[in-house]
């Protein structure tokens, strides 16, 4: 039976070779991620522990805990992210619900409408709000002519402008998963609830809403995580008054060339992001959201 045993060796080699060759197709992509993301970020992690005098020190992190300006930045970042997420939920959930109740053709039309801003450049959208919200901008002009207020309001270069811009940018991120979850809810559940005696309101809150929460959670999570690290919109619409962690990182490098401080902030931001994602992965099927991976 030596012939059979020899085949075992050869077969094993064949299998390994095939596996490697297939996996190898992914190697350029993996290499790129390693070289441009993992290694540099790892290096930044290392740099964050180097003080102004070039030796190992915790001063970058201590600065974050001590200085009041840093505390304010973290608070602002969380505030903006939470407010953005909350507003997106308040506005996006009803819209998603509306879409889920439409016949497919109309729903798809609405979906295109929701996704349209998605395809437009972030910068263009932010700029559009800048123009609309300025003192002599469209919103003020129309509001005054409609008699809503008398003096032009400062709608931009502050928290309000930032929030308006960010909600506008983030809404599609919330609507898509929620809409997807809603669409997947079997209509028969609602019929059963009605049949068992539930009023429309009761049926909604006890049957429909709970079934839509996974999508809602996924969407809210995405909005929150994206808002934490967001740069462009707060930088443009905040006018220097709304300083988020990302902006501080940029100014640390551009203005002060303080790599230690910048990378320490970056590490904290990264840890926060990963932390939030990890907590969420306990509750969600990550692969449902991205639709990738195996099985």
């Amino acid at each position: 039976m030596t012939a059979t045993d020899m085949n075992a060796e050869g077969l094993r080699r064949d299998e390994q070779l095939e596996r490697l060759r297939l996996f190898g197709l992914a190697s350029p992509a993996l290499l790129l991620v390693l070289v441009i993301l993992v290694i540099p970020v790892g290096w930044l992690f290392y740099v964050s522990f180097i003080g102004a005098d070039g030796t190992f020190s915790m001063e970058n992190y201590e600065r974050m805990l001590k200085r009041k300006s840093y505390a304010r930045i973290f608070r602002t970042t969380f505030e903006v992210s939470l407010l953005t997420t909350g507003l997106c939920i308040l506005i996006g959930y009803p819209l998603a619900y509306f879409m889920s109740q439409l016949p497919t053709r109309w729903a798809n039309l609405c979906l295109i409408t929701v996704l349209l801003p998605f395809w437009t450049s972030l910068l263009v959208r932010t700029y559009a709000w800048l123009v609309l919200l300025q003192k002599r901008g469209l919103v003020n002009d129309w509001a005054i002519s409609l008699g809503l207020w008398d003096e032009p309001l400062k709608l931009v270069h502050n928290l309000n402008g930032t929030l308006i811009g960010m909600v506008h940018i983030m809404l599609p991120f919330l609507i898509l998963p929620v809409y997807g979850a809603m669409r997947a809810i079997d209509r028969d559940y609602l019929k059963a609830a009605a049949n068992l005696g539930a009023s429309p309101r009761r049926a909604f809150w006890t049957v429909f809403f709970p079934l839509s929460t996974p999508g809602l959670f996924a969407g809210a999570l995405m909005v929150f995580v994206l808002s934490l690290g967001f740069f462009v919109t707060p930088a443009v619409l905040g006018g220097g008054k709304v300083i988020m962690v990302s902006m501080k990182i940029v100014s640390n490098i551009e203005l002060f060339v303080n790599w230690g401080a910048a990378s320490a902030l970056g590490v904290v931001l990264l840890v926060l992001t990963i932390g939030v994602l990890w907590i969420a992965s306990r509750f969600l099927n990550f692969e449902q959201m991205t639709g990738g991976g195996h099985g």
Partner: protein
Amino acid sequence: MTNQDALPITVRGVTKTYGDVFALDDVSLDVKSGEFLTLLGPSGSGKTTLLMVLAGFTRPDRGSLKFGTDEVIRKPPHLRDVGMVFQNYALFPHMTVAGNVGYPLRLRKVAKAEIAERVERALETVQLGGYGDRRIDQLSGGQKQRVALARSIVFEPRILLMDEPLSALDKKLRDRMQIELRHLHEKLGMTTVYVTHDQREALTMSDRIAVVNFGRIMQLATPQELYEQPENKFVADFIGDSAFLDVTRSGDTLTAAGTALRTSRAIPDAPDLALMMRPERLHLVSDKPGKDKNVFDATVTELVYQGESYLLYAQLGDGTEVAVRGAMRAGTYTGLPQPGGTVKLGLDAADTVLIAHEG
């Protein structure tokens, strides 16, 4: 398109494990040249795995596989030159019927004119002559089935593999296709290995059947041998319906449900035996049965009208429930004993089959 030199298949010692599970456990098998052999078994039995090993899509842990005299176990699928029909046809939707059927010929760099001719011939063989220009989504299930078949034979392979090709069709179509496939095999003569879980299909179409379970071949025999003399309980149970009675041995006498058994069949050399009782072999007897007949006392539990036959369920003395199937003529049904009544069931000695009690 006759195939004078169909190849025999030799399988030796093929084992495939997934972790601790043996999908195939040291399987050896000889498929004769030009034979129609069916791998029959329940899902998870390993029959599909074995077919995939033959095709080259599943690499076993060890073993030898020969097509004729060539060792092919390490050959990739595209070099094995076997025709294969998949369960869901796997037709290419972005090509026409002719495009699909001509694909293997284009791969083999056959001249364009010859491709067209051979494609048409293949389509005619499966009774789809002239369908070349149709798109795949315009075809019915049965037609897709035939296109898949045409595609797998157009390059004249010497071995044909089929993975439950009829399971997606409705019953009437399936029955008809079984006969057509059988005719096709007789016409083309290529060695065919067919996988199914439907025992009736296997019995209808095969020259020989390999009953598979737990990654092993439980019995390899002709349909008739499998039905009449199963070698173990699994095969007996899987093919046809039957009830089993425990048989006790005392000295030379074999007893089941209180009746001493007379049999003209071979008695397997095993410590534990079971008596196989097929519904159509059992019959109702009067008080004075003839010789060479085993009689069992039973109480009727249920009567079922089945149109062309009846099913009478009865409980034997030891509690086992058996079924008796009989043909129906005018007045038969009303003349049957009612539930609660006692009956005597007879089993001819020639039909008294004993099998080993394992597997």
